[in-house]
């Protein structure tokens, strides 16, 4: 029994099947990526219903315009994450702008700050999900379980030095969430990891 295809091959085939108009491919795409897309949208928007809508829009976009994804430019997964981030941020900006226009509290600068924060938070989520598992495990222990780096090393069965390296590298990757240009930047921003 064959294991999963290597990502580039799977991505390329998926793109071709979508372009061919194969409904079964759309279902498979959804099954593989819906929780990623929905989770990122929810991180930006903080609202279940809005996240549902963005999820719908992301898959509708891919289905209607499969050619906008080019497998040579990178993995489908990060392309979808970037697309999700863009659509979610657009939606957040639209609803917040409307609220402001209706006389809601805050200023345009507050709005921009909020949008930027939400976008960076979603990118950070994606980076954590996509980083190599050993780095994620080290961060999980040190941050969420409050283990120091020596305990982390013992838990993971690695040297102290290796634990220090993983924590530093993990945070370095995570820090790139701040780098990716303006919120709503075109696809590519999710591919940091």
């Amino acid at each position, binding site marked *: *029994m064959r*294991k*999963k295809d290597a990502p580039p091959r799977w991505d390329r085939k998926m793109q071709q099947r979508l372009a*061919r*108009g*194969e*409904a*079964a*491919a*759309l*279902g*498979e795409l*959804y*099954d593989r990526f*819906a*929780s990623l897309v*929905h*989770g990122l949208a*929810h*991180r930006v928007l903080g609202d*279940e219903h809005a996240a*549902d809508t963005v*999820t*719908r829009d992301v*898959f*509708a976009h891919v*289905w*209607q315009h499969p050619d906008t994804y080019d497998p040579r430019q990178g993995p489908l997964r990060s392309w979808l994450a970037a697309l999700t981030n863009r659509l979610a941020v657009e939606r957040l900006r639209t609803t917040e702008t409307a609220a402001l226009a209706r006389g809601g509290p805050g200023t345009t600068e507050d709005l921009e700050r909020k949008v930027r924060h939400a976008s*960076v*938070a979603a990118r*950070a*989520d994606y980076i*954590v*999900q996509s980083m190599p598992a050993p780095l994620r495990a080290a*961060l999980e222990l*040190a*941050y*969420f379980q409050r*283990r*120091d*780096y*020596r305990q*982390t090393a013992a838990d993971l069965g690695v040297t102290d*030095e290796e*634990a*220090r*390296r*993983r*924590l*530093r*590298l*993990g*945070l*370095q990757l*995570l*820090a790139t*969430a*701040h780098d990716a240009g303006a919120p709503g930047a075109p696809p590519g921003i999710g591919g940091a990891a």
Partner: protein
Amino acid sequence: MSGHGPGPYDDRGPLTAGPDELPPGPEHQVLKSLLGAWALAACAPAEADAVEEHLGVCGPCADEALRLREAVGLLQRPESLDLKPALRTRVLETCLERRPPRIPVPDWAAAYDAETARLDALLQDFGDNEWHAPVRLRWYEGDEASSRRTTVAGVIAHLMTVDGLVAVALGLEDPLGEVRPERPTPSDRTEAYWRAARFPPTRSVRGPWREQSHRLIRTVSFTGSDTGRMTVPYGDFALPLHDAMLDRAFECWVHAEDIAEAVDYPYDPPAGRHLHEMVDLAARLLPVVLEARRHHGLAAPVERRLVAAGEPGRSLRLEIEGSGGGEWLIPLDSPAAKGSAEHEVAHVALDGAEFCRLAAGHVPPREAAAGQEGDREAIRDVLFAAASLSRM
């Protein structure tokens, strides 16, 4: 760097030192390696002090420290939001409306598509405890309740091996591989697979099961129009491909419910239109099963008057309530007879999901019907026949 003494800001904080004030030495390498742990407050107090002292004099490290501290603020607990199955249906429907597919998933495979996706979503967050939770498979055999103990992973293996009957009929790879069951029946295939494995099934069975279900949906999408007369052999009987896919959707739901019960998760019945199709399949199978049971003396013999093929015959009205419900007239005396309202001798009413549980052997036939009136023998025969549709 000139010879002047310490400036006013040198001891103040991480950002005051220029990058080139101190040549990096061995000390610098060690302290630099501690920056991640320091940012996470995960080093010993003495180490933290040493790092902070170093940050006052080393610009590059100070920059990195600041950057990593900010990154710590981005760590958030992953939100574990369960995706509602209805969202999948809604999203896919919207997509297919906006751009009609050139190769659609056939209507008769839609229930299988939906049910396998629902089960896969249930399995999503299972840990080892859940995968190895005990499950009892239940069915009726010779009008007696039977059962077989396995685990959640064992149930998925069971679904995969029986779905494999459809795969084989479509010319796809058999998940049993080299394993040869005694007879090509669902239970023999399952037992053979379980026996052949060196270890009891684990979570690793999920991938192959899911890949096969995706492959089935894809294959029937391509060959859909040519498969009208294709049948899937189940060993003791055969079903047309369309019905076999519906049968597999039904089994998938029934076992998903077994799994959900074993791990104490909630699990809803299928969407109304899929439930309706499942009831319809069972209702269509009932006359054949009734006849077979008569041959084995398990059901009351036919009344004297013979019914010509295609003619209306004595019928039981099966009324299914709730979402996916409807009415079916089950001809009682011969599969060839036509169900007829004029010849109705009995009426049974029950909820759709309850009827399916009866047909799955999960509800004793004597306790199944909420409302019954008319010929008691006919009702008994039909309820037992429904339970006998179940198998492992």
